[in-house]
């Protein structure tokens, strides 16, 4: 097996606006199974970062435990990273985010890491609307321990073990909308045309962006009877909408017919242009989002795309009115403003 990717890259692929080549966003060779959906998901992250010209050293990748949580080794090799404890990615991300609010945070988790051991952590990160891109690589099984059904496995789905799953599944997107995430999307590792813009929108969003990526486990859960196989997802996914992400710097050239599109201005001024959606549908409406998810589920369909977004959301820093600057940039004068400032503060309590 090759442990190193050849150094050569297509000589006619150009650098992005930041002067970075695609290679600057790549990481080490993956040791996941051949055909793992997670590798496609990381490729989509690489593509999104490349297209947005994100400086690699301004990104922090934080993960828990599991196949998915190994992946930060395989993308953005020049970024910061923290492979933490099982289910504890949100806590570590919260700490890091509090210390330095200027970085782009990519939290990587899986369905076990999120929907089982890390469920409590997940809920509170959502509730606080932490400025984090929470990417859950969801394959419906515990791949690292040989494919037991996870909490997101659908009722009756049969993986390689051969027995149907007895329990109802947790819909992480519905949960995320209900518990306060301000950007919720679902993608499929086998559809980068949809996944890359979803990531780009998430990166531009201020607040918790939760992206549930159906990412098939090719070894244990890609059977004909599984609802998380490549084949099943392709046959049963229903895109809510397709959309273009328009970065701030770029002029909007495309115009869509009224009624078939919705423009959303993001926190940083960039835009999301939704099109081909149903008339009258509003992606910023939480109630509609949950209703639609449930309706499609009743039809036996899996809803994908951008499900809900609140572009004006306030993230944890806004809520607790924390320091505007990264803590590592504070000097003595900031940390110890002196007796006069103390007297002034005391005076407010008198």
């Amino acid at each position, binding site marked *: *097996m090759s442990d190193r990717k050849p150094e050569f890259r*297509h*000589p006619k*692929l150009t650098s992005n606006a930041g002067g970075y080549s695609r290679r600057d966003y790549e990481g080490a060779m993956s040791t996941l199974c*051949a*055909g793992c*959906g997670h*590798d496609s998901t990381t490729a989509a992250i690489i593509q999104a970062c490349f297209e947005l010209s994100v400086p690699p050293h301004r990104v922090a990748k934080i993960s828990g435990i599991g196949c998915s949580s190994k992946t930060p080794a395989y993308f953005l090799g020049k970024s910061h990273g923290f492979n933490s404890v099982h289910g504890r990615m949100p806590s570590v991300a919260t700490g890091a985010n509090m210390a330095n609010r200027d970085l782009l945070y990519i939290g990587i988790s899986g369905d076990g890491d999120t929907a089982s051991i890390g469920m409590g952590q997940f809920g509170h990160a959502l509730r606080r609307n932490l400025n984090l891109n929470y990417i859950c690589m969801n394959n419906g099984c515990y791949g690292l321990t040989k494919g037991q059904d996870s909490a997101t496995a659908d009722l009756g789905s049969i993986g390689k073990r051969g027995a149907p799953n007895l329990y109802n599944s947790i819909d992480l997107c519905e949960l995320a909308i209900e518990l306060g995430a301000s950007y919720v999307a679902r993608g499929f590792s086998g559809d980068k045309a949809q996944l890359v813009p979803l990531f780009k929108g998430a990166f531009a969003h201020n607040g918790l962006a939760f992206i549930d990526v159906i990412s098939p486990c090719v070894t244990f859960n890609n059977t004909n009877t599984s609802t998380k196989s*490549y084949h099943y997802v*392709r046959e049963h996914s229903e895109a809510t909408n397709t959309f273009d992400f328009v970065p701030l710097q770029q002029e909007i050239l495309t115009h869509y017919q009224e009624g078939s599109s919705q423009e959303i201005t993001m926190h940083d001024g960039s835009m999301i242009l939704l099109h081909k959606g149903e008339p009258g549908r509003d992606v910023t409406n939480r109630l509609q989002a949950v209703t639609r998810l449930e309706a499609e589920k009743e039809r036996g369909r899996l809803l994908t795309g951008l499900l809900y977004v609140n572009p004006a959301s306030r993230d944890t820093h806004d809520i607790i009115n924390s320091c505007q600057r990264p803590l590592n940039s504070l000097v003595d004068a900031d940390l110890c403003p002196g007796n006069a400032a103390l007297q002034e503060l005391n005076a407010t309590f008198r």
Partner: protein
Amino acid sequence: MQPTDINDPEYFHKVIDCQYACPAHTPVPEYIRQISLGHYDEAFRINWLSNVFPGILGRICDRPCEPACRRTRVEETPVAICRLKRACSDHRLDDSAFLPEIPAQKNGRRIALIGGGPASLTVARDLLPLGYSVDLYDDQARAGGFVRTQVPSFRLPERVLNEEVDRILGLGVSCHFNHYIDDLGTILAQDYDAIFVGTGAPRGRDLPDLPGRQEGDGAIFIGIDWLAGVLYRHIVSAPPRLLVLGGGNTAMDCCRTAKRLGAEEVTVLVRSPRAEMKASPWEIEDAEAEGIPIIDNHNPLAFVVENGRLVGMRFQPMVASYDDQGVRRLEPAPVEPVFFPCDQVILAVGQQNAFPFIGAELGIRMNRHGLPELDPVTLQSSLPRLFFGGDAAFGPKNVITAVAHGHQAAISIDLFCQGRDLHQRPAPGVNLVSQKLDMQEWLYDSGVSADKRHLVPTVDRVKSLKDRLIEVELGFDRPTAHHEAMRCLNCDVQTVFDHSTCIECDSCVDICPESCINFTDNGDEDDLRQRLLAPADNLDQALYVSVPLATGRVMVKDENLCLHCGLCAERCPTASWGMFKFTYNIPLAGRK
């Protein structure tokens, strides 16, 4: 696009850029692989079977393979294919084991070869193992033809030449040396079943109408005759100042030889722009490295003779201009002619074919260029039992082309002698073998070396300029040959796609370092080339298109920059991608 037909042997053959570009279609990646494994004997055998003269071609080949090498597109410089060929000649231990068995019982057919150059020798080698009796006629004392008389020893030592020529003669050629055929009729009158003419392009072009040509005659030489004169030691010295006219490899050989014979100031003058010079770039480099200026855009006007002695030449500086179609026009520059003083001039301004031994009464049809009318495939002339090859067939080309002609002529002669259709030619020997050794292990070394091209060491310049018999290049030692061989991208190990098992997981797309692989909606070729992940603007390189997959999309792979690293196949969960070694061996005479 229609799905690619990978059962057509030419599809994968074309992916092996070097082999496809080689007139003799030498399996280059395979012999380079053998070198990387240290198997020099096997590498030599592979070469010998296809190009017959590995030691010679490893030094003086025109190397059509190297500009074609994929490495020129992936980075800058090609694999040093030619020098690796020399390495397998230099480092082999035993070259007798592979020699074909020559039947003691002859088949009763007699073949005459006119001219003892590479084309004729190839015909002899291909026909002798089939039981033919072969007579070779040459006006020189030894075989080798152009390679012997015109390639200087500092590029090709006589020892190497003799070894390769004698290997073939030793198979049982009846040689008639110092035997000039002045009338082909005398050969035709004998009972030869077939006759092959490989007499080259033996006449160097002159400039007979240039003023002063007659008066300066004693100091004006024709390049190829002058080189032969040096070989046979009729010419042992050169005067202090010497001009060489011409921009081909013969001009380069003349100027470098002149330096070695004592000329102090040697200047090469070329009529057209430097970019159009026919000499190989490395020959030009070597000449310049030896302190020989090459001056382009100078048209000769006159030989200047004073008191019966040549004192120099006058040239008109020229300007090249190009019209909309890119057609070049050469016009005099608006300046006075310039004078170059010299003691001697060597004219290396081209070679011509000459067939003074083919009289009109023989009825052999010649075309308006004075060349025989030939079937381009069979090399048969208007006289059915007369065949041509090498430079004698279609004008001056190069050694490897002569070898390719030799193979084809031998096939034709063999078919002809059996009374079979010359156009029902044997097919190439092809094979496609999986390289899978284990889950993610290959039988070939799939690693991609990032090394830059290794330079060939040379002898000390001062020393080599003193003696024309000292070979300038020393060749690769074994470690360097190994490292250079590792630069080969294994283009013969093909990426083969099985659409029936693909689950479209994108793993191959994600891992491919060169972004060659795409899954997209089908379209016509122009449209597809616009839509791929990476620019697919090299129209010489094919797109490999699958039949439609489950989603209706097709797999499209741009062959242009594929590193044959096998990562797509390693990352494929269903083995829809496989690495298969494609073997393509040209047919030789006698193959069924």
